[in-house]
């Protein structure tokens, strides 16, 4: 693996010899970077012109966004009948896509909040980008129910706002819980992301040459000076937000699963849904992080920060959560048999061998079988393999939502209303467009925001250890000069202390 690490093109990091007693592979940051190297490696991408690849990707992604806007205008104008939704499948792709995107939006806050509480230092290299991805995925999720309600102008009815219709949301409905679960998740994730950004924005501010750029960054960095007091407040705020965000990571997809589980349809009405949905969400979210990070570290030369070890750890999480999801699929079958309810049994047999068997087996293959390749260390450390697998996982997770939503609905309680769902071109166009929106937002993030949490990465580097300098000199790069503050001579300190006590005695 080290071979691929050594051909870093633009990285300012030709690795000096490995430090004594410190095997390089245990380090979270490779290439013996100094603090300044890290600042430089990350900040410059938000400052200089974007690489050609960025423009190409942005052109493609932005066309997708425009397609999405046009199609949503079409949907609003004509009504949601232009999607394939119809009796008996009233929840078609819009809900499938909603659950899919919310699921993807789980990795970021898991990485930044739960891994933070568990002191998983490797999160620092990827948490910024993963959180950004989370926010954008949640945006992509929220558009679906927003337009699926049909009467877009009445969407505020979902909120408890006093009105002369004397209308109030139905608090017994899981669909309403969804509104609150997803929107509070979005707000807390946004706050969490922003709080983490403040020190890095201040770094960018201090590096800014342009008047307005400096002012804008100064506005968003809230007067950060990096003083001890700022850091203490920051750490406290970050810890509190991590504590707040942690239950949300688990609650959001639980509530999304209630949309299904609280109803009485065979195949939906099961208690396994909340944990199974949360595992699936983390599974798909991590897969999306891997997809994006593999490209990002390649294009932006961040292989010393986002190392193969980071990717491997994410692949392990994908393996674990993928296996949980696979286990849940099998448990569902067991429960259908064990319940002895013929409708439940029919629902599951119909899933696997009915008209949607093709979707079911795509799901099984992508989610349960292929991730098992990550048992092999060689495969989970191989960039091409993990890139391909991460995409396969997200295809599988989309199909999981498709299978759950469509197969339970297409067999209504009355056989006379059985049907087969067919997607329309608007369904396909809006799904493609939502990927366009997601990538547009992510590319804007890469262009304008420091994509790695510099201050946090610095905190896990060896130089941040208070005892580091005992072994490796005064902590300054060679030629950097002497420390600014020369420690007082022990003899002088002694004399000062002695003088101090003398003064006290005389005054007393």
């Amino acid at each position, binding site marked *: 693996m080290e071979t691929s690490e050594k051909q870093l093109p633009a990285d300012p990091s030709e690795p000096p010899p490995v430090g004594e007693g410190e095997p390089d592979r245990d380090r979270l940051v490779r290439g013996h970077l100094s603090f300044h190297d890290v600042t430089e490696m990350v900040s410059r991408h938000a400052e200089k012109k974007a690489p050609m690849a960025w423009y190409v990707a942005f052109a493609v992604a932005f066309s997708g966004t425009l397609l999405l806007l046009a199609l949503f205008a079409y949907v609003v104008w004509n009504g949601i009948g232009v999607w394939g939704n119809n009796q008996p499948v009233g929840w078609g792709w819009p809900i499938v896509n909603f659950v899919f995107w919310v699921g993807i939006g789980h990795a970021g806050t898991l990485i930044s909040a739960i891994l933070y509480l568990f002191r998983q230092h490797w999160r620092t290299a990827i948490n910024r980008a993963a959180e950004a991805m989370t926010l954008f995925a949640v945006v992509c999720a929220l558009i679906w129910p927003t337009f699926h309600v049909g009467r877009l102008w009445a969407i505020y009815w979902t909120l408890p706002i*006093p009105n002369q219709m004397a209308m109030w949301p139905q608090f017994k409905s899981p669909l309403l819980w969804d509104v609150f679960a997803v929107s509070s998740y979005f707000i807390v994730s946004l706050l969490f992301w922003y709080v983490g950004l403040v020190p890095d924005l201040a770094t960018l501010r201090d590096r800014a040459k342009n008047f307005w750029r400096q002012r804008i960054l*100064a506005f968003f960095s809230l007067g950060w000076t990096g003083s001890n007091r700022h850091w203490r407040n920051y750490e406290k705020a970050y810890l509190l937000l991590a504590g707040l965000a942690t239950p949300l990571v688990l609650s959001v997809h639980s509530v999304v699963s209630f949309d299904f589980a609280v109803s009485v349809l065979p195949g939906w009405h099961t208690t396994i849904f909340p944990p199974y949905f949360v595992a699936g969400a983390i599974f798909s979210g991590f897969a999306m992080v891997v997809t994006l990070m593999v490209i990002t570290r390649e294009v932006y030369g961040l292989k010393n920060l986002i190392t193969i070890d980071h990717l491997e750890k994410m692949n392990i999480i994908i393996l674990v959560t993928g296996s949980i999801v696979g286990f849940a699929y099998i448990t569902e079958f067991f429960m259908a048999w064990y319940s002895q309810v013929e409708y439940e049994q029919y629902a599951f047999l119909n899933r696997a061998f009915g008209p949607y068997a093709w979707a079911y087996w795509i799901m099984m293959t992508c989610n349960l079988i292929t991730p098992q390749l990550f048992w092999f260390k060689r495969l989970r450390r191989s960039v091409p393999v993990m890139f391909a697998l991460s995409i396969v996982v997200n295809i599988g997770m989309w199909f999981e939502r498709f299978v759950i939503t469509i197969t339970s609905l297409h067999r209504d309680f009355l056989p006379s209303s059985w049907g087969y769902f067919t997607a329309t071109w608007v369904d396909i166009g809006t799904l493609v467009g939502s990927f366009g929106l997601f990538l547009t937002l992510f590319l804007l993030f890469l262009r304008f925001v420091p994509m790695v949490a510099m201050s946090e990465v610095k905190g896990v580097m060896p130089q941040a250890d208070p005892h580091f300098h005992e072994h490796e000199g005064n902590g300054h790069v060679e030629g950097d000069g002497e420390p600014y503050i020369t420690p007082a001579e022990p003899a002088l300190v002694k004399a000062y202390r002695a003088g101090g006590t003398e003064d006290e005695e005389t005054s007393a």
Partner: protein
Amino acid sequence: MPQLFPKKANTLPLLSLGASVLGGVLLVFLVWYYFSPEFKVVGYQPEQPVPYSHETHVQKLGMDCQYCHTNVANSKHANVPSTETCMTCHSQVRAKASSLQPVRESWAEDKPIKWTKVHHLPDYAHFSHAAHVDKGVGCETCHGRIDKMGADGVYQAEPLSMGWCLDCHRQPEKYLRPNDEITTMGYTQPANFVERNLERIGKQGIQPPTNCSACHY
């Protein structure tokens, strides 16, 4: 590095917090009041093809509502009278009046007069006149003092919003009147009307529904 913004910028977060809370409350109020039928619809008075005056017919001549709106007690719709109803009198009375020319034309050509509807309910709500009239909701309660609306035409007197409907559905005893006073205009309730209405509600089992599907499909 010195701060780029002066010290007074420290009040900005607090100010913006206060402003957003106040702004939010203000926004809710504005939508609550100005987006409502009470503000937008009450007073709607479209021009009608014939300058028909309820004032003349009801107040001056003392006609009952049901002389023309015949189906109000047994149909969802309180029908607008056909031209023939007008012509029962106007073939004799003011038979040459120029203002009645459209009525005579309609009669001669056998084409209905195109009255403009004043009281609209949204198409996702259904409403039955019969159910209300038979249980003691007076015409005036929803339509206002029709007997005072002159040749300018009928206007909408009440908001007809959902909240307004629910006011009565939740406390019908405050609004009901005896069935023989349904069409009375300017009816004043007697002192003990709430008790009397409660007694009627109990005896007749009047239970105005407040669930969604009572009015919405």
